[in-house]
């Protein structure tokens, strides 16, 4: 199939269209995908229950994929460990902490005392500290925005950020009337333009999701089958 539109700089692609040799994987994906889709839109009870079963099975297989992901993580860092250098020390820490956590949480269960000790002493403080560092990154990014892209969009974006932040708490204990509170400018901005824009973006994203999903279901895009 010729390319309907050749965007400059990227060259056109000959294959990737409906290659006549449809592998087994494509057949599986298309068949089960259409069955589940039918379960959503055809009001037949059998189809609905079949869809529920297929979806539940996919949850079980997705959990197995999580273990394959853990194996991939271990393999990448195992090679880094064997390669040596400063990066190998970090990989050693990762592999050690992964194995210790598997053993302890496996023995005591996800909400066991020692499991919660690991979660509350290591994962929780590190993750919330990373979120705290995000505050510095976000202020820096917002300030640099005018240098990166100086246009109307960035100006409006910056103004909205400043107004909403100013209106989210009293300043030196003083509640600024027209800005703060349920009837202030901040609430107005959040409840009208923000909601409108959010709806428009969600509808646009939904259209894109449908288009991408249909391309995969008819076999035009085949991310599987490696």
């Amino acid at each position: 199939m010729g390319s309907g539109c050749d965007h400059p700089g990227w060259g056109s692609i000959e294959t990737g269209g409906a290659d006549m040799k449809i592998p087994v994987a494509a057949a599986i994906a298309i068949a089960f995908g259409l069955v589940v889709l039918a379960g959503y839109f055809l009001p037949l009870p059998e189809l609905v229950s079949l869809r529920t079963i297929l979806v539940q099975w996919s949850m079980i297989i997705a959990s197995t994929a999580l273990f394959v992901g853990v194996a991939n993580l271990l393999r990448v860092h195992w090679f880094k460990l064997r390669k040596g250098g400063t990066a190998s020390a970090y990989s050693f820490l990762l592999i050690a902490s992964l194995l210790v956590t598997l053993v302890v949480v496996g023995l005591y269960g996800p909400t066991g005392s020692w499991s919660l000790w690991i979660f509350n002493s290591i994962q929780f403080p590190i993750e919330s500290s990373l979120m705290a560092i995000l505050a510095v990154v976000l202020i820096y990014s917002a300030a640099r925005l005018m240098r990166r892209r100086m246009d109307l969009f960035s100006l409006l974006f910056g103004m909205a950020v400043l107004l909403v932040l100013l209106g989210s708490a009293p300043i030196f204990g003083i509640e600024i009337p027209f800005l703060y509170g349920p009837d202030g400018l901040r609430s107005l901005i959040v409840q009208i333009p923000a909601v409108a824009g959010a709806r428009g973006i969600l509808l646009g994203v939904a259209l894109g999701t449908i288009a991408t999903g249909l391309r995969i279901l008819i076999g035009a895009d085949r991310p599987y089958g490696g």
Partner: protein
Amino acid sequence: MNIVDILISPEGLGLVFLVVFLGSMIVFAVAGKNRPGQNLRGIVAFSRLGKAVGLAVEAGKRLHISLGWGGVSGMQGISGLLGLSVVERIARLASISDRPPVVSSGEGTLGILSQDTLSKTYRTIGEARQYDSGQGRVSGLTPFSYAAGVLPNIYDEQVSATVLAGHFGSEVALIADASERTDGLTLAGSDSIQAQAVMVAAAQEPLIGEELYAAGAYVNAGPLHASSLRAQDIFRWVLVVIILVGAALKLVGLI
């Protein structure tokens, strides 16, 4: 329940919507073949991405594509699958670079799919030997551990451009900030609106709203990418008309 009841029920309407959408995609694809050259509005991000791929190959630097942690199920999963189309195109172009591209993901299935896509692409262009399974790697299995796991890739592996295409949360700001600290180009798009808000400030080339889903058409990933964009445009205007007419009728009290 007769046909009319079925059709006006959500499921029925959904089915009609789906069938018409699919039909228009196929019609535009066939029509597009005879009348190539349907144009798209310019999106700066994709032309800069094309240049970035060329520069990376020339300078012997690496391209880093991040698929997020959305898995493959639901709306957040589909944005990850779209990222895989971008991976295929970039791997095809950048395979001749000294440092081939690296794909990082935050979920098991996406990790597997990124390896499959890379190996299939290298096999298609006859460079099967150049494929290394380490190029498709899982960096972490929770959102923030995934973002933390991507930082060493950016700092240590001479990355000149980072493409974020998939489902992210607000932690995407850490990745974009690391790319800026190493003077790399960041092109970012997501289905999550929180991630989009952060990308607008932190990334050099943010993709807003559904611009991420147009990536396939702008990187010439296949004929159906372009025709599905035309179908999206058609249904966009259908929704606009429905909202305006529906609101007017609602205001008047007719519905």
